[in-house]
């Protein structure tokens, strides 16, 4: 097929609408991305991904090695090794399942294996709770995994394709965790535009591991004992890869926009009514839904409030987020996670934001909130309460230093 004919095929192709959940959208993306190896071990809510992949394979729609391991530890190890031999792979887990795989998770970045995993965010048992809480994925925040949070099934599909493109870039070669809120994304189906395969093929080049591929034609030893003689250099290499990821993510979104015609704005965070906002809330994941509703209502009443939704948590776009947040009179940060005993007893995100703002000349007060733990709904009144507290901080120029627990019974 010559270039013109190829273009004609691409233009003629059209997206199709499907009623699928966020996890199912990730499963569809693995089909579109021609993922070679999928490893699975059931835990709710991640299991909705493996079930849908199994269905796609059983229906003859997807051609992949589908390996159900005997535990999450093996599941992540198998996917890791598949990546080492040059096979595009996908795995994932939730809550304590993700924790059980932690040994494999911890070593994947240094080995520079671009594994993509879906985290169906779930509270860490005990006590048993299926609902969303971000501490599972955040437990791996410092290790060299890229972390991205999505808030719709559409974004889950698109981000999976983007994640492969970024992770498999030779300048990066780092694993990527896509966090999807348990229940709200993993267990509810919405209409999703499924792109045609020709578009995906144009966007996503094959995974080429180059001189790092583990193959008889390229005899290498991976991960020998190195001790203090080498480890610092290896860490610095991972650090550089994460720095490079900032550039590669930008490039990937530009290309995505060109081919798919959506996904505008800053890839790292979504701005919602921030242009003229005096105060903003900030958070990750599906809590964006009630927040956006309240912001629209308050704007109708003339209140200049906005919202910033952090998508890419690692790498963190401090270079643009700092100057943006410095513009506002106050910032309210909603954590769907906890960091027991941390400064100001805040969640993880609030202290990241405080750290980002430290480099700014003007530092608005930061009000820290912990909300929606264990999958508890972040309700409209709860959002209103957080906005009200943020507004008060803007008025007085001072925020309560200690974090505020929202929606907790006394």
């Amino acid at each position, binding site marked *: 097929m010559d270039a013109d004919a190829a273009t004609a095929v691409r233009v003629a192709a059209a997206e199709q609408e499907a009623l699928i959940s966020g996890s199912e959208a990730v499963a569809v993306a693995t089909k579109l991305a021609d993922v070679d190896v999928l490893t699975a071990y059931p835990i709710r809510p991640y299991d909705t991904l493996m079930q849908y992949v199994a269905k796609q394979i059983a229906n003859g729609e997807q051609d992949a090695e589908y390996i159900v391991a005997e535990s999450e530890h093996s599941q992540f190890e198998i996917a890791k090794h598949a990546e080492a031999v040059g096979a595009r792979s996908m795995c994932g887990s939730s809550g304590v399942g993700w924790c059980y795989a932690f040994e494999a998770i911890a070593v994947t970045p*240094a*080995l*520079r*294996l671009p594994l993509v995993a879906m985290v169906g965010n779930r509270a860490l048992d005990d006590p048993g709770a299926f609902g969303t809480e971000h501490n599972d994925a955040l437990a791996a925040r410092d290790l060299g995994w890229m972390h991205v949070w999505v808030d719709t099934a559409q974004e889950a599909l698109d981000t999976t394709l983007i994640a492969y493109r970024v992770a498999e870039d030779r300048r990066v*070669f780092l694993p990527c965790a896509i966090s999807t809120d348990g229940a709200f994304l993993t267990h509810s189906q919405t209409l999703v535009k499924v792109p045609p395969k020709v578009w995906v093929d144009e966007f996503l080049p094959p995974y080429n591991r180059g*001189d*790092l591929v583990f193959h008889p034609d390229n*005899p*290498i*030893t*991976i*991960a*020998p004992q*190195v*001790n*203090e*003689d*080498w480890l*610092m*250099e*290896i860490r*610095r*290499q991972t650090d*550089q*890869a994460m720095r490079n990821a900032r550039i590669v993510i930008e490039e990937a979104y530009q290309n995505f926009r060109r081919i798919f015609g959506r996904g505008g704005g800053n890839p790292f965070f979504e701005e919602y009514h921030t242009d003229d906002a005096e105060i903003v809330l900030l958070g990750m994941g599906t809590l964006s839904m009630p927040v956006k509703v309240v912001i629209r209502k308050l704007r109708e009443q003339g209140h200049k409030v906005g919202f910033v939704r952090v998508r890419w948590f690692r790498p963190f776009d401090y270079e643009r987020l700092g100057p943006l947040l410095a513009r506002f009179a106050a910032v309210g940060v909603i954590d769907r996670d906890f960091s027991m005993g941390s400064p100001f007893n805040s969640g993880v995100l609030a202290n990241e934001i405080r750290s980002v703002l430290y480099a700014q000349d003007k530092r608005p007060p930061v009000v820290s909130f912990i909300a929606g733990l264990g999958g508890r709904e972040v309700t409209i009144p709860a959002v209103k309460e957080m906005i009200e507290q943020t507004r008060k901080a803007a008025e007085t120029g001072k925020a309560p230093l200690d974090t505020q627990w929202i929606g907790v019974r006394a």
Partner: protein
Amino acid sequence: MARTVSVEVVYRGIFQKTLAKNICRGIVLAARKEGKIGIAFGRYGDSPERNGIPAKNFAIVAPNEEELQLSMAQYEPESTDVTINVDDMMCKGVESWAWYGLQPINQKVRENGTLIVTSTLPAEELIKFCHTKPHPYRLAVIPAIPSFSGLWVYKDDHTDVRILGALPKVCPELTSLDSILAAIEDEWKDDLKVRSARRAHEQTTTQTVKPGEGNPEVPYTFDMPGWTTMREGVTIDAIRLGEPIKFGDQIGGYRPARNPYFKKFSTRTMRPVIDFDKCIKCTLCWLQCPDSCFDVTPDQTYDLNAEACCGCGVCEAVCPVDNCVTMVNEAAFTDNQSQWEAYKKDKVAYKAWVEAKIKERPERSHGFRYRGQYQEQVAKMGVAATAENLDADPGGQEEMGVGAGGGEE
């Protein structure tokens, strides 16, 4: 004592680990008797669970806590006042880990510091093995065979206290003999061990090694790459395929590629000597060698690559021909040259060389050939207290390593 004194014990993995620990603990405990403070530790990067691998232990004694801090949170001191070598064959240098290179046994010994070696060889012979230093240092010899005391089962042959007894003689700054003896009494509650220490103190002879005296060879070293030049993904080149061997107009056989950054021969205390005329080309030595250290010659015989040989003795054990492969004390050799090439150049001279080597030094304690060999050797040390102690517990013979490369693993 107004300054910090550093002592290093270079020992062989597994069977001398407890010995090295005992010496270093003894030093710190003795110094404590004089109000000084110290630290005893093993080099953390070592892997002393490997049989025979050179490893290091340290004892550092300081006049007070503040001075000691200078020597803490370190893997090893920059230089030593005393380096103790408890296996004389490590005088040829030690290589404990890939990329370490060959480290001279006296590498850390400071000017006018002392190298203590337990050996039955004359000092002159030991000096020939040791790499040259630009400054003078002293060599002290404690008459003893290399201790095979063990790790899990510590078969006490008094080497620990004999070295402790010698220390005040070579480094009076460290501690007095009285403090050493008092510490031994406290630690072991054994008068026999106190007597062994006192006797070793008397037996130890010391002489000065002049600058430039010794092995003039420059030991091999490696430069480690930085993060921008290192291969990514914690990957390194695997061992590639080997190549045929060329000798004169002969070409053939096979020399496997080997790790260029870890030669491993400093683990060896014996090496196989091969009588090529007797070889029936059965391949057993080549197949069974755990380190792939045999090259297939163009004659289809098997030549030892002495840089890769750990001296385990498996080749000798599996060879079906009498006196075709014979393990010989490493002290008989000064280089790692090919035996097969020497054989090809002059078969008559080679035969004479083989016979001389076997006759000259047939035994070595690391890798016993028969039960009780170690006890025989200890008795030959002429150390009454030591022999007496071993004789008192003949059942202990069972716990000594027997057979090639015997030890605890």
